[in-house]
């Protein structure tokens, strides 16, 4: 049996209708929804409120306190935690700088690398399918496994990188132990880890481009580069939008990879916002950590929005 909104009301209507008094007829709009139906989304709303809205509001509430995470006593400190983060905490600003640098590196390298892979492996030949599977493979590994694999690769004593380099008489250095280079080495790991996944997104975009466009371009004498610039790139813009946004968020939240590869707490050269927030929580500064989390959230939103605007991946007013 199906229940249509307003059925009961419509059934009642003839009882109150009298030909002598048409003004008394209560007309109901056919689109009017029975208020009882608002109860149906209530469980979903409750779940969202409890697991998303409430923790977010709590974070705002904690962020204006100096609560240590376990005491009954705390003080409201207003915006002091936010001011401290930007003016009196060089560890936080260092983590922010590292994170922005890391995002920039990974977004550029991963987007370019995955696009190149996709362009090379678009055709559905056996070889391409095999190579696609090979490049996609790291994606199915857990980030902790990836961290440990690369920790071994980068080990200066027994690691794979230096072992290979030593065969040609080169010492690769300390890798993660070199503060000036450490972030770049982790960025290499991050790109290796996720490029296969982004390649798949690009391949889907590339395979949707009509072949006739390339045929027409070739007939007009367009070079490969011109074809890429005028056909491929505009048509993969939606895929690029997904890749860039996803890579940005992923790079901001490379928490488990950094912790796995650099240990807990990571040294300053590898500290990013998520690991800094974790360290602040572990240091029993819950109020301050909540403020850092809100800044982190705002930062991801801002960078993602800026990217979309700068790359013109989102039309105005969308």
């Amino acid at each position, binding site marked *: 049996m199906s229940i249509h909104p307003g059925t009961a009301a419509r059934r009642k209507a003839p009882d109150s209708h009298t030909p002598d008094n048409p003004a008394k007829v209560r007309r109901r709009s056919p689109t009017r929804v029975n208020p009882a139906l608002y109860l149906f989304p209530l469980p979903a709303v409750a779940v969202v409120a409890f697991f998303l809205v409430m923790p977010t509001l709590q974070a705002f509430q904690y962020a204006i306190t100096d609560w240590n995470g376990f005491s009954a006593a705390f003080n409201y400190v207003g915006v002091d935690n936010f001011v401290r983060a930007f003016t009196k905490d060089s560890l936080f600003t260092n983590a922010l700088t590292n994170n922005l640098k890391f995002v920039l590196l990974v977004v550029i390298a991963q987007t370019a690398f995955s696009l190149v892979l996709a362009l090379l492996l678009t055709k559905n030949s056996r070889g391409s399918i095999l190579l696609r599977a090979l490049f996609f493979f790291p994606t199915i590994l857990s980030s902790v496994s990836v961290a440990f694999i690369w920790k071994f690769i980068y080990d200066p004593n027994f690691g794979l990188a230096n072992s290979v380099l030593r065969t040609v008489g080169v*010492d690769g250095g300390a890798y993660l132990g070199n503060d000036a280079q450490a972030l770049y080495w982790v960025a290499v790991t991050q790109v290796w880890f996720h490029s296969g996944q982004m390649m798949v997104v690009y391949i889907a975009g590339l395979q949707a481009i009509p072949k006739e466009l390339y045929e027409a371009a070739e007939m007009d004498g367009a070079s490969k580069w011109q074809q890429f610039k005028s056909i491929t790139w505009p048509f993969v813009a939606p895929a690029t939008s997904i890749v860039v946004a996803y890579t940005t968020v992923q790079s901001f939240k490379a928490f488990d990879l950094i912790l796995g590869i650099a240990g807990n707490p990571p040294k300053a050269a590898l500290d990013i916002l998520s690991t800094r927030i974790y360290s602040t929580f572990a240091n029993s500064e819950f109020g301050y950590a909540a403020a850092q989390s809100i800044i982190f959230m705002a930062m991801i939103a801002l960078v993602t929005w800026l990217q979309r605007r700068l790359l013109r991946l989102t039309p105005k007013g969308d």
Partner: protein
Amino acid sequence: MSQISRRQAVALLGALGFGAAAAACAGPGGSTKPGGATGPSAPATGAVTGKVSFAHWRGEDKAVFDELIKRFVAQHDGVEIAQDISTSNDYNAQALQKLRGGSIGDAFATFRGSQFKNFTEAGVYTDLKGSKAVGNYQKGLLSAGQSGDNQLGLPYQVVFPMPMANLDLFDKAGAETSPKNWDAFLGMCEKLAASGVIPISWPGGDVGNGGQLFNCMIANNAPVDDMCAQIEQGKLKCTDDWFLKMLGQYKDLKPFVQPNATGTAVEPAQNLFSQGKAAMLATGSYHLAAVRGLGAKFPIDLVFPNTTSDGNGKYEGAYNATFILGVNSASKNQAAAAAWIDFLSEPENAGYYANQTAQHVSVDKVEYTNPDLKRLSPWLQKKTALAARFQFNNLDVRNAVEASATAVISGTSPEQAAAAAQKIVDERL
């Protein structure tokens, strides 16, 4: 874009109001302090039955604890003990929140230092003063578990955060294992290097293990025993002469640690030592079992890097009393948890734990049968400094101060490294 109707606006506001009200209910400080206003009390007494959760971070000791649990259960009918093991880092970060709920960690362990302090402030401990267990411990080793007049925890392990030495390589190089002063220590390293081995394997890429050497380096350099607490309070500074001298001595060590030491994690450092490529492992005696597990067959002793110039230092070594056992004040089964702690504190059981895990214990009258523990036992009688790095309550300060030593080994000048560390300290005063 469609307009929001009045009804939708009211619904949205209602949802936000609900969220805000719920958030306020669970806001900061909303829960009560388990210890209560009167401070910690003794664990409840009663029948030793039911389930007990034993929370700790030493996964490598699981099998040994399993055997001890078997023995305990054989003595107490109807009791069950489950080990809740986290990694040490996770335990450091999350244990307090978990234990306060009382669902895990009826009995538990803590690190010395900031974790013990936080647990104490949160009222998680019961007071074990006067318990049967306390009487089994060496009096001088109980202080790490005390707060005021209360004995909140029982420091179970005694470890020596000092470089371990491969005695075969020392013999071969003709190097002495007890250098009287800093020059003698450097001379010892030179002899080892001349014999073709790496004098010191140091895991500079691992903050926790790499920082253990700091305990030795600072012990005789600092003007006071609570030097790290005073640095944190701003009474002493990393830019002080004594601290710069210590960093200068770290610089002296640079030619004697393995190449690219700042990028070496703890496992490769252990491997260099256990494979006989390095003569010393600059972590501590707590890695004895690990290096034996990696195949090290040679005799092992400890070496104290004596930083004095005349050999008249206050200390001959460094030790730490840690793995502080306690009974959770939020536990519903305190009687059984306390009985488990009593059981672990009996010399026979503590001895089993010590010999199987190759770690000394604070329990008195323990017979060490493990050859490594036997060889290192004389260190229990020496004048050793309680590991200083655990005086830091703020982990950011600790990491910054220790990172100054790593920076020096990677090539930064002691002055620059000290200034960078002091900046972080100053920001947290």
